[in-house]
């Protein structure tokens, strides 16, 4: 015959839980805020991008499609030679393939890619998950500022170029 105490105490636990307030957040009526560092979507600051292709190369899934062309910009001073600059024609990220690993954001040398905690961009067609340059630029509005670090850290938080 099993001793009763364990069985009875178990009933007490469920009874008490029943009376305590709930933890459920009723999405979509109430939305929880993800943390600022949450990897929701990648935003592109087009002005900083030089089409160096580092992000497209390092992406494990090859989900970034970049096309650019070189053009000659006027020289910086009088009498100088024209400078060769890169212009970005196409910068697409295919979120159907993206693993949200963040290697592209980390590897970019020109601070052109940023993480944003936005996650509500589901689509009915998979093809619509390919975000082009303009849409990626719009995500920049949702990029939060970098947070301050914990005590004892030697790092200073960087600034998000707006």
């Amino acid at each position, binding site marked *: 015959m099993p001793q009763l105490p*364990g069985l009875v105490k178990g009933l007490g636990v469920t009874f008490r839980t029943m009376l305590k307030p709930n933890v459920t957040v009723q999405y979509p009526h109430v939305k929880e805020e993800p943390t600022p*560092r949450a*990897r929701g979507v990648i935003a592109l600051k087009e002005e900083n991008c030089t089409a160096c292709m580092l992000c497209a190369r390092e992406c*494990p899934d090859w989900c970034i499609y970049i096309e650019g062309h070189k053009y000659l910009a006027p020289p910086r001073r009088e009498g100088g030679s024209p400078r060769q600059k890169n212009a970005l024609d196409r910068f697409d990220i295919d979120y159907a393939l993206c*693993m949200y690993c963040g290697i592209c954001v980390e590897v970019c040398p020109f601070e052109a890619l940023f993480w944003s905690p936005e996650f509500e961009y589901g689509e009915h067609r998979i093809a619509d998950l390919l975000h082009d340059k303009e849409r990626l630029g719009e995500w920049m509005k949702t990029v939060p500022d970098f*947070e301050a670090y914990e005590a*004892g850290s*030697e*790092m200073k938080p960087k600034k998000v170029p707006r």
Partner: protein
Amino acid sequence: MTVVDPQQRAYVASQAADARVNVELETGGMTLNMGPQHPATHGTLRIVVRLDGEQVVEAEPIAGYMHRGYEKLCEVRTYPQVTTLVNRIDWLGSFANEVPFILAAERLMEVEAPPRAQWIRTILFEMSRIANISLFLGDMGAQLGAITPVFFAFRDRERALNLIESATGGRFHPNFDRIGGIKDDLPAGWVEDCKDVMGRMRDFCDQIETLLMGNEIFASRCRGVGVIPADVALSYGLSGANLRASGVDWDLRRDVPCGLVFDQLDWKVWTHPDGDSFARYWVRLQEVRESTKMIDQLLDGLPAGPIMAKVPRIIKVPAGEAYVETENPLGAMGYYVVSKGDLVPFRVKIRTPSFNNISIVPWVMKGVYVPDVITILASLYFILGDIDR
């Protein structure tokens, strides 16, 4: 053979019917396929059981339904890319998968992470252990029929996952470890939140203990079921809590020092002398409690300093071989990295704990009842991504 007389015909028919019934009643040898789609196997594991009535005569696990080709993938991915992929092997405690790989690469590069990075690595390592095993505590109840503890486990595990997300950006796949340190430092207020969450995890452990472990029905389902003696466990290559529950005092965190700071903490290894399912549950419960205490000590003693050693931008690991094994939530996970001096590893062999843990299934299942099959599988606690890679 023609039978003309109706009575004779009826007699022959009844004889044949009798023979059919006798054959059908032969109970030995019913093969039950607990197939790839089954609520009890954590994923797509197939176990072919031959039953005699309700007792198992023979059991054979057939893995491979989730094979994703990790070792081959690692041959064509650079080291940061491999770190990302490797998160997905044991997806419940995913930071712990990155650690042995990064430590092996650091050993080849002869680089050591600065102290603050090592401490933060250890904190997240233990946090992944808590996330992983707290799910087990609820899930084993679900396998046995108690539907409530799972929800408590998920509710309290959410807090740990939110902590991991606020530090790394990803709840399930942190991708935070780097060769030479970690990616980023902790955000302000993280230490306090973490201490709060650890307190709640301890409350959760107490709640689970009262609700499930103290339950006499649970005890009678688990005690004496699936006993694995210590020598059998060692010979089959079990590791982690399964081995400690059979009485073997073996913990890689204490015995094999590598880049994590366990030697500077005050903690103990929990073992249990019986080798049954109850012992495995008990050991894991104590481990979660111990992990919360360890994290508290780690948070108190977190040193200041940089989080990344001097490492070139493009990582080319010098030629060589290194094998690092750490005490992951599921057992002993090891990476054998062979490098030829390229951007990509030449060969990565991943030794996963669950693969060896389920090798004991044919031995331990002989003679148990069908419900006990579920109990034993639940208590051995494997994850399919870990078995199949």
